[in-house]
């Protein structure tokens, strides 16, 4: 799979997430609108009582009329209650919207995290930050501090600078940068020795293999993203 198709897939994923969140908001907004439209308004009960009064010619006695008025009054009180219910339901709808959006966002985050975890598991090490501290003669990989010799620091700095320029250095070129001579005058083996020393100083052979990569017939490069490199 090429890089472009991977980023395409990510774009499609993003679009699906946005569409999902938009549809959640749309559905709940529609529900809210229906809620406000469909609940009877305060006058519905009064209109019923009024119709009852008009349609029945024998409902003309004083007592009957008083009863009808009481009926309308209690209906109005009930519709006030309904209005407060409606508000409560609306607040709950807003909460539901927020929760659903959060759920979708967390789901997406979880998937992204899982993918990243998978990548880390395959790669063995994920360097989030590489800080070279010349004055303390140390290199900080993520949160780990490694004490290095002067020579190893030099080698690492050269590799880091080359990485930031997207360059791959041969052993001779590394030796040339450090010693200040031209690459033609330098021995490939001298650079390779420097790389070997750097790896040895970093200790764990396997871990430093992951950090300082050797590309056949091209040279050496730091196997990390260049944006994480910092020098001080």
């Amino acid at each position: 799979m090429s890089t472009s198709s991977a980023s395409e897939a990510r774009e499609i994923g993003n679009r699906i997430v946005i569409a999902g969140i938009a549809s959640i908001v749309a559905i709940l907004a529609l529900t809210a609108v229906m809620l406000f439209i469909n609940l009877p308004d305060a006058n519905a009960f009064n209109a019923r009582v009024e119709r009852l009064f008009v349609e029945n010619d024998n409902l003309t006695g004083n007592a009957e009329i008083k009863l009808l008025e009481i009926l309308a009054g209690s209906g109005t009180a009930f519709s006030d209650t309904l209005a407060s219910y409606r508000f409560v339901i609306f607040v709950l709808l807003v909460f539901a919207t927020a929760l659903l959006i959060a759920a979708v966002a967390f789901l997406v985050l979880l998937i992204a995290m899982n993918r990243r975890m998978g990548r880390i598991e395959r790669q063995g090490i994920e360097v989030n930050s590489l800080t070279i501290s010349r004055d303390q003669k140390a290199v900080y990989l993520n949160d780990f501090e490694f004490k290095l010799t002067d020579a190893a620091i030099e080698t690492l700095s050269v590799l880091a600078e080359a990485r930031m320029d997207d360059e791959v250095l041969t052993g001779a070129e590394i030796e040339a940068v450090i010693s200040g001579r031209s690459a033609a005058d330098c021995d490939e083996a001298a650079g390779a020795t420097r790389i070997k020393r750097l790896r040895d100083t970093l200790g764990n052979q396997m871990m430093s293999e992951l950090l300082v990569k050797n590309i056949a017939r091209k040279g050496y490069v730091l196997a990390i993203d260049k944006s994480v490199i910092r020098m001080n």
Partner: protein
Amino acid sequence: MKQLFFSSLLLLASATVAQAACYADYKAKQDAPLRLHYGVVEVRGDCSVASAERQLRDALADNGWQLLNVLGVFDDTGLDERKDSAGEYFLRF
């Protein structure tokens, strides 16, 4: 000529009698809060539901009431049986 005069007089008299004895009963309401009333009113002029409606609509509106409908028109004989029901709105407007 004389006959014509008498007959017209008779017509006039009967009309006056009918006018004097014409009443209508109606239903009216007030909004917010809903209040209802049943009333009896004396109809001036033409003794019909339509003229009673015309006359009542304005009279009730001036007092803050809205006419719902006029049930019918009747003469003196129907007055007593409606007096109780109409209560304070008996011949008020």
